[in-house]
């Protein structure tokens, strides 16, 4: 219908300019490489290649991971680096896109020839990224990506630097319930969960384990991510009165559930939510601080934990960003600690030796001790946290608890 307008001279010259600039940039890049390689092995910094979602869907956690990596780099460099060499991070943005993350790691390995790799954020991105690393026989320690599919591929160079994968995250809560005298255990339970790779496996596994303990399931439903109204669920729960409500809650669904339960006048004796309560003030602002009392959740890291370098990490984060550190930053820091420990133990940058060492040893990190199965799946356990008096305390496992008291049963809504 409408004719294509002829290309204007202005547009043609703009195109030419773009091509010229691109060519110039490419040439500059080529020009830099020889001078880099000329430096002697020892003075040369160790370059670690990382792609992170700094824009797009995962921009928020991706930026936290970047902070975690950078705090680690600054701390390590201040103490003389790794193997006597300074550490340099080469961080590129994958825009939360699977194709871009593959291109990024391919470029980091084949063109930039980085010495080491660290992982990106989320299972979605680490899944293809780890395949690139595996193909190039590079060790790939990743801070966030615990979906079961990650570990079904038999990769040898992949290591997940958190204490447990999604289906195992609820174990610490089940263990707590097992530790209770028979009479104090919940008799009935309800399991609403968002259809989310980090929420649903946690709740499904908890349901199976609790049913084996004799806890009767009175409600079990999966809902899509765009569900916003929880009052009808709350109304159903209010009529079935389960002792335990265990919700696979990402965030806003967790807040929505607490608000709705209170509106419908039902307070369960125990309330567990997967990740919503870990969002500190966002969560307490959303549900009201008084209503957080006694809420359980599991988490990979806690600010108060007395694990190696945790206090230093928390202080450095607060100083640099003037905010409470986020779990995603701590997880990235831990991934870097893992890589550092292996490189220092091996005494060289040798991917195969690093891989073998990690399979054979346990690394102490700010998340606690980490060790791995052959497929890169971690063997540890999450922390059981609980809101107490407006703050978060670790209540399990017992040896890592920051508080000896556990609020049970949960008090009614305030």
């Amino acid at each position, binding site marked *: 219908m409408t004719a294509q307008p002829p290309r204007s001279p202005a547009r043609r010259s703009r195109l030419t300019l773009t091509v010229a600039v691109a060519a110039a940039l490419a040439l500059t890049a080529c020009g830099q490489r020889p001078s880099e390689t000329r430096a002697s092995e020892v003075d040369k910094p160790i370059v670690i290649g990382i792609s992170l979602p700094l824009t797009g869907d995962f*921009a*928020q956690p991706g930026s936290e991971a970047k902070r975690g990596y950078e705090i680690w780099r600054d701390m390590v460099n201040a103490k003389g680096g790794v193997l006597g060499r300074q550490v340099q991070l080469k961080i590129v943005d994958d825009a939360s896109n699977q194709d871009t993350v593959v291109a990024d790691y391919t470029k980091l390995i084949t063109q930039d020839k980085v010495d080491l790799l660290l992982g990106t954020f989320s299972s979605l991105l680490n899944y293809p990224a780890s395949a690139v690393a595996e193909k190039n026989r590079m060790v790939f320690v990743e801070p966030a990506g615990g979906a079961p599919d990650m570990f079904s591929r038999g990769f040898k160079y992949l290591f997940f630097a958190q204490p447990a994968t999604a289906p195992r995250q609820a174990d610490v809560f089940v263990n707590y319930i097992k530790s209770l005298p028979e009479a104090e255990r919940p008799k009935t339970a309800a399991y*609403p969960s968002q*259809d989310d790779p980090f929420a649903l496996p946690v709740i499904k596994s908890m349901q199976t384990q609790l049913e084996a303990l004799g806890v009767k399931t009175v409600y079990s*439903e*999966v*809902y*899509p991510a*765009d*569900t*916003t*109204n929880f*009052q*009808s*669920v709350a*109304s*159903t729960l209010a*009529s079935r009165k389960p002792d335990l409500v265990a919700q696979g809650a990402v*965030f*806003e669904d967790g*807040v*929505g559930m607490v*608000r*709705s339960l*209170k*509106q*419908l*006048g039902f307070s369960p004796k125990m309330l567990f939510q997967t990740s919503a309560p870990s*969002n500190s003030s*966002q969560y307490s*602002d*959303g*549900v*009201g601080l008084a*209503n957080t009392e006694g809420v359980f959740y599991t988490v990979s890291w806690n600010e108060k934990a007395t694990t190696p370098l945790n206090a230093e990490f928390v202080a450095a984060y607060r100083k640099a960003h003037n905010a409470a550190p986020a779990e995603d930053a701590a997880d990235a820091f831990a991934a870097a600690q893992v890589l550092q420990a292996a490189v220092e133990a091996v005494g060289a940058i040798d991917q195969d030796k690093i891989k073998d060492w990690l399979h054979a040893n346990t690394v102490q990190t700010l998340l606690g001790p980490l060790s791995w199965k052959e497929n890169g799946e971690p063997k540890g356990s999450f922390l059981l946290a609980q809101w107490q008096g407006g703050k978060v305390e670790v209540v399990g496992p017992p040896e890592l608890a920051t508080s000896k008291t556990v609020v049970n049963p949960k008090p009614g*809504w305030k």
Partner: protein
Amino acid sequence: MAHFVQAIALGLLIGGVYALMASGLTLIFGVMRIINVAQGAFLVLVAMVTWWLWNRTGIDPIVASVVTTPMMFGFGWLSYRLLIARIRGSSPSMSVLLTFGFALVIEGVLNLTAGNKFKSAAPSYFEESFRVGAISLPKAQVFGFAAAAGVLAVLYYVLHRTWTGRAIRAATQNPSGAALVGVSAAGTGALAFAIGSATAGVGGSILSVLYPFFPASHYEWISRLLGIVVLGGLGSLPGAVTGAAILGLAETLTATYGSLGWSTLVFYLVIMAVLLVRPQGLFGARLREDAA
């Protein structure tokens, strides 16, 4: 029985709020054939401003709509003059592109200024309920429903009983006829867009209390609002109200008696079924150009 009445009551309360949020969208489409994809972003923008006012001054979020409604009226009027007026007369798909771009800009600005974090206003009554026998009526939803009913009544009155409203409706039904009798197309366009945007003033205030939100929440809302408006008939205010009530009831009844997982899906199944029988939606009028 009480369980059933509870589900119906909740569904209608939620539906009232949805109706208010969708009213601006259907009004703007009715007058200008512009699909304002930025309406969801307008709601989130107001929710953010409301949250900020509430957080700083403690002013009640629903009362704050006294401030945000004129603000959105001005914002809508300016947006029309500066942006929308330039694509008048182009196909509706142009308006989708333009307003989608506008929504992305609002989202980006909110990300930079307010941060990519969830917020929700929590006035003293946010989690309290009125009790009628065994039935709980959440206060926030009751207030939201009341505000929505008030705004919709005013909107209906303006459209049907004032000269301005009649001019807007005339421009909806027959633009060239309206122009012939002296209704300025540009003037009514700006006015309708401003009024449509102003409904986001109350809608966004209620949103800030009822649902946690963050800058990208607008995608979720616009898809729901478009669904309501398509079901009711694009451009029809009674259609939007009916569509919203159906959505509210479909959500709560499915969640109560069926499965929670189906509660959002059932509404879209209803839309498909209705559109098979009535392609113009429940209350939509067939336009002459549609028949051709």
